[in-house]
């Protein structure tokens, strides 16, 4: 957007890579079992045996951070895959559909958006039965596709009358064939930024839901469920329970944002130069 070329976000990329690598290979350097509770060791300050201290249930925060990060990142990726898939297919349907169907679908999206997200999530959660990382990911994915659908719809409307799409249709190409072979490569540039941002939003959503008690239960360790102990910990002066998982969460979100906005910058620049 500004006149100068944005610098490559090396710092963000390296930090994110470190966090992801740490979470993926957490088994190799975890000092304790993250699920092991020992009330005798509850709310120990960082240092010594417990590098990041312990939480109110006596679990070792250092091990929990890496182990829980795995779940948080996984939820981010899985729900983004789902929301992108729904968004692209629905958006393309809207874009190809005749006017009245398009209007009806867009109205549906509008109404869908106006159901309070909280209510939708509580319902979907209840319908899914037990709460685990996978159901949370599906629930977040199923509620986060509207933005992508809107963009895809506009793009498809622009592309559908172009020669290569018409040619493909004349040769008998089906909807999914055209979508995969002809539209997706063209769409990628305009939705890549949103897909990256969806990962960020999904991770943030998981932590918010778990914090509110609507997401993962305490036994399943994730950054969000770790933070659900934060409110009570704050008043006992256990700052590390609030600050350390939060810092990891925010650092991850910030890195993803930096990379996302760099990608967007590069893509818009390319578009302008053409």
């Amino acid at each position, binding site marked *: *957007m*500004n*006149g*100068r070329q944005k610098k490559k976000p090396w710092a963000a990329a390296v930090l994110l890579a470190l966090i992801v690598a740490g979470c993926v290979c957490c088994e190799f350097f975890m000092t304790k079992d993250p699920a092991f509770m020992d009330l005798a060791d509850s709310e120990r300050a960082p240092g010594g045996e417990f590098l990041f201290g312990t939480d109110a249930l006596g679990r070792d925060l250092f091990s929990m951070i890496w182990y829980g990060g795995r779940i948080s990142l996984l939820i981010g990726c899985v729900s983004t895959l789902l929301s992108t898939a729904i968004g692209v297919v629905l958006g393309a349907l809207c874009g190809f559909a005749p006017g009245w169907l398009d209007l009806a679908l867009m*109205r549906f999206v*509008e*109404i869908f*958006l*106006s*159901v*309070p*997200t*909280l*209510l*939708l999530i*509580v*319902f979907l959660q*209840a*319908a899914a039965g037990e709460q685990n990382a996978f159901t949370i990911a599906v629930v977040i994915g199923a*509620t*986060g596709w*509207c*933005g*992508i659908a*809107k*963009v895809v*719809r*506009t793009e498809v409307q622009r592309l559908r009358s172009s020669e290569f799409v018409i040619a493909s249709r004349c040769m008998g190409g089906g909807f999914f064939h055209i979508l995969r072979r002809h539209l997706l490569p063209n769409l990628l540039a305009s939705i890549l*930024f*949103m897909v990256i*941002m*969806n990962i*960020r*939003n999904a991770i*943030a*959503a998981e*932590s*918010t839901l778990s*914090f*509110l*008690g*609507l997401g993962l239960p305490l036994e399943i360790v994730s950054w969000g469920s770790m*933070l659900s102990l*934060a*409110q009570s910990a*704050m*008043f006992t*002066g256990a*700052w590390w329970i*609030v*600050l350390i998982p*939060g810092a990891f*969460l*925010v650092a991850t*979100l*910030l890195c993803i*944002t*930096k990379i996302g*906005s760099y990608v967007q910058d590069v893509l818009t620049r390319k578009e302008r130069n053409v």
Partner: protein
Amino acid sequence: MKRRFIFYGKKLLSFTASIFILSVLVFCIARLAPGDPLASYYGTRVEKMSVEEREKAMERLGLNEPLAMQYGKWLGHAVQGDFGISYKYKQDVMEVIGARVGNTLLLGGLGFVCLFVLALLLGFFCAYCADCFADRVICMLGTAVSVIPEFWLSLLLIFIFSVSLRLLPSSGAYTLGEGGGFSDRLLHLILPLCAVILGHLWYYAYLVRNRLLEEMRADYVLLVRAKGLDRRAVLLGHCLKNVLPTYLGIMAISVPHVLGGTYIVETVFSYPGIGTLVYESARYKDYNLLMVLALLSGIVVIFSSRIGQAVGERFDPRVTAAGTGRESMQGWGG
């Protein structure tokens, strides 16, 4: 005159239709979700109830009829202004909401106005001295703050200002037992307000900054610059005027996002507003309360998106309905 009448009539009709479909949808979702509404009415006593007692209670609350019948009854009463009682509070739903809606309006409304003004000022300042040291620092800080989830931001504020510095109260809307004077309420409002504003500020400020900078590259700017106007005059007198309609439209669409943020902030600060109610009623299946809250949120969302479109079309004929939207943000509205 007549055409205008038809125009508004059509708008009203489609608005009512949307609300109607929304009410059916929410009704079905709420009733079909597994969970025990009796638990929210009778509390822990529900565990000791026999099967017959349960049957009776279900019948008294009208919960064992077919879904369509239940909805028909609800709609019939609702049209007459009777939305039933809240299972948990044993009070008329409107009374429960009425007692709290003022608090949310105060927090959300004040937050929205502050957000609107501050984002404009900050965005303008950053555009004015684009790429200078202050702009770069603000851009960095702003991006960092904008990714912090609202609940953690609230926790952080509580941690710094009420636990460590002991300057401001950490929860509630007023000190219990003192009735709540003006200054007391204000003191309780500061932290939640900061959380609401900080959570959204940079998104809009950055938007204003970028739109202004983009506008600065237009041809007419080159002309007025050539005539001798300085940067500030161009920005204030020409660019701002062109950016403002888009900004207004986007702010109108963003009402639900700010509202959603307010809900979360309210829960963290145990602020007695609608947010805590939404959360409680959704969790504990307080059907009647949930219906009204969902409809209220829905009305706000649909209404604000219509206003956003109208503003865009009114001030800027190039904008069509599809072009405005906060695509990159998550749908946390309501």
